[in-house]
């Protein structure tokens, strides 16, 4: 037993060492006498990554960087910085120390850099040819992913080029016999979903697992219900008069959320635990559904028992699924933007990008790269004509300062739908008074 646990890290370290060696060798090759003969080849750029070196996405990127350096002679100076990168990037730009390339989720890129007009317009990248494929980038990355993004002050929504796409939904184990019996086909409307839950309840199986302290994943129910009712959360939030909260559709959505809570459809004890306790319970088969992003399959991959088969669906009534883009961005102040742009196009070739699906277990923006089996349903959902941002891209501190606390009160059964709506409305008025 200890032997197997030893061998995995050893292998990873071995692979990392080999990568480093390759990097080192190719670096020597290019910096030496310029053997390739092309005077313009070579050079380098810096890349700050949202991944830490041990994460699978980093492994995929490392391999691509090695191939890129071999192919072009351009060295990539990588800093595996982790998720906090979006907090450091703005001040680094201000101090003129911005990297030439960095990556994060689209909302983080927009919020921390693009909204301040500091992100380079990457439209030229869309025109670049993808190495070895003879098509431009614009042809493999569906335009709908850019259409959903807010525009920066320069009017561009091409400040991020995605290489990984996530979407949220209700995840479940399709191989669970109880669930298969209760839900022969995806429920057509909210009432049908609750009927599935009632059937499960009769077998004393809770319907929804939920990390009670997390306003984001739990808030997705509200978000999807509003979407189904034709309410745009972003518009609701950006209305300084807060009149949008008086829309009966908002109250109706909140009442449906209240129904989930009061009807006892949530896993018992959900409000007394800390992440990832309930996710673990769900992966152990103690509840049927978990509302989460498509990264959840990777999160629980090591825990699920044999025979588990991932399925996912959108809450009934949803008009369009949400999408979160993880992608590259280049600061306006980057010194080697051209080399960085070249790398973006290079990484999007099928051969390299496929690793995001096969190694990292996630969906890529390219529809011709099949998602891993556990995310097949999610990729199908994303294939529709339109996508939107989670919570319709509501930005800034609105969620923590207006929605989150009141939503959790509703979610924990401490307030009614009407109280929830009234409190949000009141707090939104003060919120807008304190902005600007």
């Amino acid at each position, binding site marked *: *037993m*200890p032997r197997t*646990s*030893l061998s995995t*890290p050893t292998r*990873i*370290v071995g692979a990392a060492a080999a990568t480093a060696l390759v990097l080192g060798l190719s670096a020597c090759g290019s910096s030496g006498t310029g053997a390739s003969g092309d005077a313009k080849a070579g050079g380098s750029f810096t890349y*700050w990554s949202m991944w*830490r*070196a*041990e*994460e*699978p*996405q980093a492994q995929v990127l490392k391999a691509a960087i090695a191939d890129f350096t071999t192919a072009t002679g351009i060295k990539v100076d990588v*800093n*595996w*910085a*982790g*998720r*906090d*990168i979006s907090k*450091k990037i703005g*001040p*680094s730009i*201000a*101090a003129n*120390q911005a990297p030439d390339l960095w990556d994060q989720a689209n909302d983080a890129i927009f919020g921390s850099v693009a909204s301040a007009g500091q992100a380079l317009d990457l439209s030229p990248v869309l025109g670049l040819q993808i190495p070895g494929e003879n098509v431009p980038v614009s042809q493999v990355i569906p335009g709908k992913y850019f259409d959903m993004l807010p525009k920066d002050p320069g009017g561009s929504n091409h400040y991020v080029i995605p290489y990984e796409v996530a979407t949220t939904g209700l995840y479940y184990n399709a191989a669970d016999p109880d669930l298969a019996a209760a839900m022969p086909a995806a429920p057509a409307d909210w009432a049908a979903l609750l009927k599935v839950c009632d059937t499960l309840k009769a077998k004393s199986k809770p319907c929804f697992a939920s990390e009670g302290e997390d306003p984001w994943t739990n808030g997705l129910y509200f978000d999807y219900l509003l979407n189904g009712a034709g309410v745009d959360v972003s518009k609701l939030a950006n209305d300084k008069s807060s009149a949008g909260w008086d829309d009966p559709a908002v109250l109706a959505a909140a009442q449906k959320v209240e129904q989930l809570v009061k009807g006892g459809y949530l896993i018992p004890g959900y409000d007394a635990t800390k*992440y*990832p*306790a309930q996710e*673990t319970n769900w992966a*152990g088969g103690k509840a049927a559904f978990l509302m989460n992003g498509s*990264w959840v399959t*990777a*999160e*629980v*991959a*090591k*825990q699920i028992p044999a025979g588990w088969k991932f399925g996912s669906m959108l809450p009934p009534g949803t008009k369009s699924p949400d999408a979160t883009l993880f992608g590259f961005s280049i600061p306006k102040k980057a010194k080697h933007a051209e080399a960085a742009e070249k790398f973006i196009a290079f990484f999007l070739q099928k051969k390299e990008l496929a690793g995001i699906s096969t190694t*990292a277990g996630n969906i890529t923006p390219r529809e011709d790269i099949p998602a891993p089996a556990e995310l097949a349903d999610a990729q199908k959902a994303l294939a529709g004509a339109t996508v939107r941002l989670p919570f319709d891209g509501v930005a800034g501190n609105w969620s923590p300062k207006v929605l989150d606390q009141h939503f959790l009160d509703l979610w924990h059964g401490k307030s009614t739908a009407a109280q929830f709506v009234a409190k949000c409305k009141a707090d939104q008025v003060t919120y807008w008074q304190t902005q600007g």
Partner: protein
Amino acid sequence: MQTQRRSAGLARRIATALVWCVVAADLLLILWIALTSLRGSSDILHQAFGLPAPPRVGNYLTALRDGGFGQAALNSVLVAVVSSLAAVAIAAPCAYALSRRRSRVSSMLTMTFAMGLGVPGQVLVVPLFVGLAKVNLTDSHLGLILVYIGLAMPFTVFMLTGFFAGIPSVLEEAAVLDGAGPVRTFVQVVLPVARGGLITAFLLQFISGWNETLFALVLTHSQDQITLPVALAEFVATEQINGMDYGTMFAGVCIILAPMIALFSWMGTRIIQGMTVGIGK
């Protein structure tokens, strides 16, 4: 009188038992963390309290290498040791001068340093971040060390001033009469006598440097620059999106705790005295 004394005795016995319960809970907590660091991730998630069967030393290897805790531990040692040494080296002469000279300027300076004790770190965090970014010292050991030296000044000067004040100046008078200059007097006569206080000051600074989180989190992000608290915070942050190995995380926690436990069992009395008697004076 008699019954009153007996009930007081009973109350005392209950209180003593309670104290021992808390002591036991403290020890159990450390034991639990140590044991959990040897268990597998899904074991921990399913049953928080359990024995490692079999013990997985591999968690530590993973933490040190893939988890980045090894590099972070080296960074922590470097930053904490260098910054505390420098802080004591800079603060000691100043404290000595302040304790020996009794003028209005001197007491004003002493007061200025002491006032720094009341400034919470969050006041400094934004200015230091912006300032260090301007001179290209963010995400660097040097920058973090400078910040820690600055943060250490009020307490170290304050504590050492009190300490030097308690050392009689008889020896210095003799040295001066022998013709020793100020530097020689300080280095050869005062410092040997003050060794205990200096070591305590170093230890306390080392402990706070080792555990400091806010500035490290804000000022560093590369895996070859971050200290242990940042490594732990970022390791925990990856639990979202890619899932986290809890055994490895607890191994990381143990790596943060181990030097504290070692230091404390070795020089516990000195640490406690340094952190308490100095206050009581």
